[in-house]
């Protein structure tokens, strides 16, 4: 009862976008988002690279700093299907993935796609839902398909989840297991805006909210083609070695270090970062830019050191070129 989509995860029929167009595309999205989101250019850039690198993003921060607004702005900038799931303690897995419904007319069960079937899915306050529901989303993120009653339903392409979670009220949330954290390419924090940015923010809050007037600057197809291009960006051996050495460092200096999945994520993110610069090869700087958001949430430390310190130490101590 599937939609008979091609079995591949990506739509290979699309021809890759020229590299310069990728950089241009990214810039347009960033500029567009900047109309709504004041400051936080780095975070916006990270989300765009994640988008290009086929990754999912977890935004974590205190409430009210614009996590949802950011996700919505990104989604609106691309002309594609945007879905939003508000996670609550009583949300059921099928509320996310969809369910088979008996069609009286055809006398058959029909799959009713859930909100996860979107190109960009906003999972708001994901840690408020019980683990079972979280898992449903995370499985979809990993598999890029949804299974209902034994039938698999492919998710659309592109498929990117931007989830948010609150860093407060830990007693009323379900902490995501580390294994599930791993599925997010990046975990980003917005932080409070600085006074100037906040002033600008307040000015915009007068009258209609700018997001309502946000136009899309690209479409689904272009995004797919851009992803195609990014995937072909060259990663030479010195860079690969650099990534493995970074990962190795975290494994030596933390209870649980970066998994190979994490290394792959870092490599892809670095590719996208190079694409953002319109460069057809990855340089260590790309890796260094991505590592602080790609790696820490995959690391569990024992003592006082937190994961971010481990990563920054790794960047400081691991030589860029193999000696």
């Amino acid at each position: 009862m599937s939609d008979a989509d091609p079995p591949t995860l990506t739509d290979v029929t699309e021809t890759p976008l020229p590299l310069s167009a990728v950089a241009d595309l990214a810039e347009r999205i960033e500029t567009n988002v900047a109309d709504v989101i004041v400051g936080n250019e780095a975070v916006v850039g990270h989300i765009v690279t994640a988008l290009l690198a086929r990754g999912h993003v977890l935004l974590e921060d205190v409430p009210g700093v614009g996590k949802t607004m950011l996700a919505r702005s990104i989604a609106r900038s691309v002309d594609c299907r945007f879905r939003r799931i508000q996670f609550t303690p009583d949300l059921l897995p099928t509320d996310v993935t969809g369910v088979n419904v008996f069609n009286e007319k055809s006398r058959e069960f029909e799959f009713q796609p859930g909100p996860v079937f979107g190109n960009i899915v906003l999972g708001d306050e994901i840690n408020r839902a019980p683990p079972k529901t979280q898992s449903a989303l995370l499985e979809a993120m990993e598999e890029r398909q949804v299974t209902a009653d034994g039938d698999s339903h492919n998710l659309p392409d592109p498929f990117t989840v931007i989830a948010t979670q609150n860093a407060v009220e830990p007693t009323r949330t379900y902490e995501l297991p580390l294994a599930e954290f791993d599925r997010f390419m990046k975990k980003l924090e917005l932080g409070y805006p600085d006074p100037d940015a906040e002033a600008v923010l307040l000015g915009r809050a007068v009258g209609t909210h700018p997001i309502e007037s946000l136009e899309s600057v690209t479409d689904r197809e272009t995004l797919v083609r851009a992803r195609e291009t990014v995937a072909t960006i060259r990663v030479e051996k010195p860079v690969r070695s650099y990534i493995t050495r970074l990962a190795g460092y975290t494994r030596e200096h933390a209870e649980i270090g970066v998994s190979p999945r994490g290394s792959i994520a870092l490599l892809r993110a670095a590719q996208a970062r190079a694409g953002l610069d319109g460069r057809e090869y990855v340089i260590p700087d790309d890796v260094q830019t991505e590592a602080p958001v790609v790696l820490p949430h995959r690391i569990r430390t024992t003592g006082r050191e937190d994961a971010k310190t481990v990563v920054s130490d790794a960047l400081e101590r691991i030589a860029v070129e193999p000696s």
Partner: protein
Amino acid sequence: MSTDTGRSAKTIELGVDGSVGSRTFRTLALGSIVVLTASYVSVLREVTRVVGGTELLLALVGAMFVLATIVARVVRPRTATALAIVAAVAGFAYYLEAAGTDIGVVSSVADEMVADTLTLATGLPLLQMIEAGVWTLAFAPAPVFLSWYLALRGRYALAVVPGTLALYFLVLTGDAETIVTLLGTLAAIGAVGFGELARRGGSVGQADLVAICFAIIVALSLSVTFVPGGPATPATAGGTDDGTLEGAIDAAPERSGIAGSVDLSPETRFIGTSEQPTYWRTGVYDRYTGSEWLRSGQESEFDGRLTPPPGEYETVEQTVRAESPLGTIPAAAQPLSLEGDPIEDATVSSHGQPHPESTIHDGGEYTVQSAVVDPPSDELETAGTDYPEEIEAHYLQQPESTSSAFERRTAEITADAETPYETAITVEQYLRESYEYSLEVDQPDGDVAEAFLLEMDEGYCVYFGTTMVQMLRSEDVPARYVTGYTSGEEIDDDTYVVRGLDAHAWVEVYFPGHGWVPFEPTPPGDRDDVHQDAIEEPDPDAFEPDDEPDEPTEDEPGAPEHVQNDSADDAGDDDVPESEETEPEPEPPADTDFDTEPDDEFPISIPRETVALGALFGLGLAAAIRRSGATGRARRRVGIYWHGRRSEPDQDVERAYRRLESLLARQYRPRRRGESPRRYLTALADSAPEDSLPHDPRLESVLEGYERAVYGGGVDRETAEKVIERVDELTRERLPVVGRR
């Protein structure tokens, strides 16, 4: 001492960062032990070369090596040390057995050993020992065995001990030359150093330290003379100076050197009164090394009487008054008794030649009675060859190196001689007639007697005397070399003035039933001329052609060479009554010894040592420099400004970038670990003023080229050249002095 087995198993072979396996160091350490062993064995070999037994010595040393190698596998160190001590004791016991009777000074065996050793350790050269060969053979095995054994067991530091002790003992005896000592010392240090490295698994970098140690030692030894030199030069006898004939002959009481060119000193030595003119003998030598004469045996105290010759003799009484400090007791051969204050504590050699304990000062006077042996020639003809054993044992010695050519030539010359006497006369005549007299000769490198007989055509008394003795010995005629003065100038009845230039050397030959009979191989006529010149022209500036040859006049009136006169028709005593000529200036300025060319030995011996030391020193210096990292810095420094040869484009670009980075590192700071090139340049640009190097747009293109080469899959030749050019520009603009545009 039993912990060393399995030590090699514990050593770690490090394979990274230029470290070297312990095997290499072990080889080096063992090599050092071999060099150390070679150093003292070479000294011993020098002894056996003179007295015989080289093959035996080398065989013994080889056997010790083999034995030690075998024993090292099966015997524990304690046992081996005991073995070595037993071997040493046995060896010395054998030596004492062989030599005990000859050394009369000591009585008990223990005393004897201690006394001998002490005497040796206080500077008695080995060759002066009567049984030097036996001593050598007794001495060698223990240290060779022990050091090799211990080295094989991995106890390098301990292994060095017996070898070093042996070497330094030889230094104390004065037999080990500076260069040998130095080599031995370095080898000892090398053995310890490399041994340690082998045990601990060191690296080449640590081996540098050993080289530095070498260099330090060489430098020290060059500046402080910390390594004891060769044989110490005792005060020369009679106030003579080096460079004079007298000084060369009487360099030391127990040895008589053979020099190159010499001068003559006209200074008056002593005034002797004698009933008849005789040669004044001051020294007797029996052992010939090829380049000098030594007196074996020890001095004994003089008890007032000496053994008279076995046959008939005529007693001559002489009185000697020293005119300048005398280190000898000139007297006609063969002195029988001595009287006088200055010589109360005189000693007498085993050859019957008295020596003063201390210098006889001006005016010191003594009387001596001598037995002058002057048998008629027919009696000598029939004296036969029934030599006492002792005479044969000591007066037929020839260096092992004596060539067959020398012996052949001697045999040819003496082919017609049937008796020892005829042989002696023939040789004497041959030398007198075939060679010219000259004080200006280059000292030959090898055996002096051989060189004189076979190659040279002129020389002076030392050469004639030496050659004659060795020729006779090769014909089995016991002979010895004696030194002293000719009769001197008769200034009054029976009163003779003897000057430094009268110094002379001649020959004594042994005849059974008669004793030692003097012979005079030096041609008489020429010497007199030379001698006269020296007296008449003591002006140092004028010496050039004439003054050279002043030595003793062989033809002197009082010449002891009766023998030759009998048989030889040549102008013996009478032909040159030099007395007239000598009169003119009896007392020329005292210090007019003219040193003509003391340079002979220097150009030969010093450069070799210098080169060796220089090489060692240079090695150490290089190691030190390398260790200090100066070479690396220099290379990097130069490398900034000069790209050098091209290779692959990618590598060229990489190298060019590194040059740029070195430049920046010197000017600003080095790139940190973990800092990417781009980040580094950005950081520099952030902190540097606007128009400085980090803001130069060319940096960006170099960086891009670099990134492309390393991360972007490579660059083409053209790009590479462009990058190199940029870097060349950038670096040269910042070249300290030159190259600025």
